[in-house]
C-alpha cells in the first residue's frame, strides 16, 4: 500500500480551516445528539447551504463530524434521561440508565466515551486499509454492476429502515420517480415538468433533503405533547475505575469489530450494530442476568459498535458511490453539489479529499473524547434547552438557508412543500430515508440500466450471466422475496386472530437482516 497519499491526507487535516470545521462539526454533532428533536440526517440536510461556500474536503470533514459526533451525544441522553437521542443508542439505555440510577452515571458516560473512541479509531484504521482495496476491485464495475448495486442498496436501506417494509419500498419508488423529473439525459425529452421552467433542470437535492428531513421532523415534533422535563442525574466522576475498564475491554474490542462489519452493509449501520454487539455480550457473559441491571459491558459494547459502524458506513459511499444509510445519502448529495461524484475513482483522482476526510476522523474522535470526558458537564447543562425554543430557530435557519443556495424564493417554497410531505410521511408510517436515498441514486440507476440494456442489446438475462451483477441480483431477489413468502407461510399456519400485525412486521425485518448478514 502506498503510504504517501495517506500522509498527505494528514497535511490536509492539519490545515487550520479544516481543523476548525472538524471542531465545528463534532460540536454540532454532539449538541444535536444531546438535544431533543433533530437527528444527524436532518441536521446535515439543514446545514447543506453552508457547505456550498466551502472547499469540498472542508465541507465533508464537517458533515462527517456531525454524523459521528451525534453517536457520542446520543449516549448522554440515553444514560441520564432514559431517552435515546439517536436510534443507535437505544440499547445503551438498559445498562446505562441502570448505572445512572445507582449513582454511577459518570462511569457509564466515561466507559461509553472510551468505547466510542476505541471503536471509531479501530474502524478508521481498518477503513484506511480496506477502502482502497474495495475501490480498486470496483474499478472494473460496468453499468450492469452499478444497476445491481444501486438496486440492492435501495432495497436494503428500505428493508432495515424503521417502520413498515412495504411503505419504505413505496417511499423509495417515489424517490426514483422524483429523480426522473426534468430533462432526460439520453433523449432530451422533458419529463414530468408540467411546462415549468424551474423544473426543467430537475429537482434539486438540497430542498428535498432540507424539507423531508429537516422541516418534516420539526413539524412532526410540533404535534407531540411535551413531556415534563426530568432533571438529569448528576454526573460525578467520569473517569472509569481500572476494574471497570478491565471488565469492558473485551466488550469494546468485540463491539468495534461487529460495528465495523455491520456498518459496511448497506442499511446495516449503527442501529443494527449496537443491537448485535449488546446481544453478543449478553450471550457470552457468565452472568447474563447482570445485563439490564447496570453491566458496564452493556454500555461499552453497543457504544463501541455504533461508532465503529458510523465510521465504516463511509466505505460504500467513498469506494462504490453507494450510500449505506439516510445520513450517507445526504453526504452523497453534498459531494455531488460540490462537483465530486463519489465512486471507485475517488481514491486515485481525489486523494486529498479521500484521505483528508478519513484522517480527519482521528482528529474528530480525539476532540470528541476530550469533550465527552472533561467537558461532559457542559453538555449535560444543554439538556435543559427546550424543544419549543429550538424549533423556531431551526425553522428560520432552514428557510433562510434554502434561500441562500440559489437566491431563489421558489427554493424556499419547495422546502416547505417537501416539509409538509415529510410530515405526512412520518405521520402515516413512511420513513423518508429511503425516498431521499432513492432520489440520490435514481439517475445512477436509470443511466446504468439503460446503458446495460444497450450493451446487452435488450437481453435482460445478461445481468445474470456476469458474475458480480448476477450475484448481487440474486441477493436482491432473496432479500425482496423471502420475507413476504415466509410471512405468508406463517400466516397460513397461525390463525389470523392471534397474529398481531406489529409482531409480524418486526420479525420479517429481523429475518431479512439475518439474510443480509
Amino acid at each position, binding site marked *: 500500500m502506498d503510504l504517501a497519499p495517506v500522509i498527505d491526507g494528514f497535511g490536509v487535516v492539519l490545515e487550520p480551516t479544516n481543523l476548525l470545521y472538524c471542531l465545528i462539526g463534532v460540536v454540532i454533532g454532539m449538541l444535536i445528539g444531546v438535544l431533543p428533536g433533530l437527528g444527524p440526517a436532518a441536521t446535515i440536510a439543514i446545514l447543506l447551504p453552508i457547505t456550498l461556500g466551502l472547499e469540498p474536503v472542508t465541507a465533508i470533514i464537517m458533515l462527517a463530524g456531525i454524523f459521528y459526533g451525534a453517536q457520542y451525544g446520543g449516549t448522554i441522553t440515553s444514560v441520564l434521561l432514559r431517552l435515546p437521542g439517536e436510534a443507535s443508542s*437505544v440499547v445503551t439505555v438498559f445498562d446505562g440508565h441502570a448505572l445512572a440510577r445507582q449513582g454511577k452515571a459518570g462511569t457509564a458516560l466515561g466507559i461509553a466515551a472510551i468505547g466510542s473512541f476505541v471503536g471509531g479509531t479501530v474502524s478508521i484504521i481498518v477503513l484506511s486499509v480496506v477502502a482502497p482495496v474495495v475501490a480498486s476491485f470496483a474499478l472494473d464495475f460496468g453499468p450492469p454492476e452499478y444497476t445491481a448495486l444501486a438496486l440492492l442498496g435501495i432495497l436494503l436501506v428500505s428493508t432495515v429502515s424503521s417502520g413498515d417494509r412495504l411503505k419504505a419500498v413505496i417511499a423509495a*419508488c417515489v424517490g426514483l420517480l422524483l429523480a*426522473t423529473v426534468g430533462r432526460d439525459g439520453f433523449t432530451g425529452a422533458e419529463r414530468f415538468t408540467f411546462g415549468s421552467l424551474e423544473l426543467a433542470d430537475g429537482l434539486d437535492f438540497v430542498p428535498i433533503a432540507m424539507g423531508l428531513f429537516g422541516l418534516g421532523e420539526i413539524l412532526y415534533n410540533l404535534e407531540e405533547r*411535551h413531556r415534563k422535563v426530568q432533571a438529569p442525574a448528576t454526573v460525578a466522576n467520569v473517569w472509569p475505575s481500572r476494574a471497570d475498564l478491565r471488565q469492558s475491554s473485551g466488550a469494546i474490542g468485540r463491539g468495534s469489530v461487529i460495528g465495523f462489519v455491520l456498518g459496511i452493509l448497506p442499511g446495516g449501520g449503527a442501529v443494527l450494530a449496537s443491537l448485535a454487539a449488546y446481544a453478543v455480550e449478553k450471550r457470552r457473559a457468565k452472568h447474563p442476568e447482570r445485563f439490564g441491571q447496570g453491566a458496564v459491558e452493556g454500555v461499552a459494547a453497543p457504544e463501541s459498535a455504533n461508532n465503529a459502524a458510523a465510521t465504516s458506513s463511509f466505505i460504500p459511499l467513498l469506494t462504490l458511490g453507494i450510500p449505506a444509510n439516510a445520513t450517507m445519502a445526504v453526504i452523497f448529495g453534498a459531494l455531488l453539489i460540490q462537483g465530486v461524484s463519489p465512486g471507485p475513482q475517488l481514491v486515485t483522482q481525489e486523494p486529498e479529499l479521500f484521505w483528508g476526510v478519513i484522517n480527519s476522523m482521528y482528529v474528530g474522535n480525539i476532540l470528541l473524547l476530550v469533550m465527552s470526558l472533561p467537558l461532559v458537564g457542559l453538555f449535560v447543562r444543554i439538556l435543559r434547552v427546550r*424543544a419549543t*425554543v429550538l424549533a423556531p430557530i431551526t425553522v*428560520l435557519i432552514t428557510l433562510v438557508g434554502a434561500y441562500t443556495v440559489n437566491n431563489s424564493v421558489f427554493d424556499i417554497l419547495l422546502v416547505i412543500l417537501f416539509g409538509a410531505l415529510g410530515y405526512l410521511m412520518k405521520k402515516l408510517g413512511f420513513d423518508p430515508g429511503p425516498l431521499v436515498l432513492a432520489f440520490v441514486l435514481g439517475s445512477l440507476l436509470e443511466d446504468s440500466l439503460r446503458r446495460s*440494456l*444497450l450493451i446487452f442489446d435488450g437481453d435482460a438475462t445478461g445481468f445474470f450471466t456476469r458474475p458480480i451483477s448476477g450475484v448481487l441480483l440474486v441477493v436482491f431477489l432473496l432479500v425482496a422475496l423471502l420475507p413476504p413468502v415466509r410471512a405468508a407461510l406463517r400466516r397460513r399456519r397461525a390463525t389470523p386472530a392471534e397474529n398481531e400485525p406489529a409482531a409480524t412486521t418486526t420479525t420479517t425485518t429481523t429475518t431479512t437482516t439475518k439474510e443480509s*448478514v
Partner: protein
Amino acid sequence: MTAPHSGAHAATGPGGQPAAGAGPAPAERDPAAELSLEEAVHQVEAEEHEGRPPAAGPLANVLVAAAVVALGVAAVVGSAALGVGSARDPDSGTFPLLVSGALVLLGLGLLAVARRTEDAERFTGASWLVVAGLASMVGFVALIGVIGFEIPAALLAFVWLRFLGHESWRTSVVISLGVVVAFYLLFVAALSVPIPHLF
C-alpha cells in the same frame, strides 16, 4: 456473524447459554432483564412515542393505500405518454414506467394489508399546530420579497414560541427579537448573503 435476532432470543429463550438464569433473578423492577432484547428495544421506542397521537383507523389506511395506487396510475399514464420504448431501445418513459408500475403493485399490496396496519397516526386537534406552522412559513415567504426578512422572521419566531410552543410572552418577545438580531449580524453583516432585508 451473529444476527441480532438469534442473539436476542438465545439470551433469554431456550437453547441459549445453559442455565441462563434470567428467570429466578430478582429482576422484577427492570423490564430489560425479563424481556428478550427485541421486546425491550420496542418498549423503549414505545416510551419515546408516548406523547404521540393514537393510531389511525382502517379507513385512513385504506385512503393512504388508495393514494399510493392513484399516484402510481398517474405516473404510469404520464410515463406511457413519454414513450414506452423497448428493452432493446429504452426510451424516456421506460424507466419511469417500470418504477410507477412497481408503485401500483406495492400500493395494491398496501391496500391488501390496510386493515392490519397500525403504524399510521390519527390526525388530532394537535395537527392544527402543524397547519399553523406551515401557514406561518408560507406567510414568511410571501412577505420576504416585499418587506425584507427581519419583520417576517420575528413574527414567525414569535408565533412558534408563543402560540405553538406556549412559551411565556416575555420569553417569546425576547427570543424572537434576539434571533432576528443574530440572523442579521450573521447573514447580512458578516456573510453578506443577498437575502432581502429592510435595514
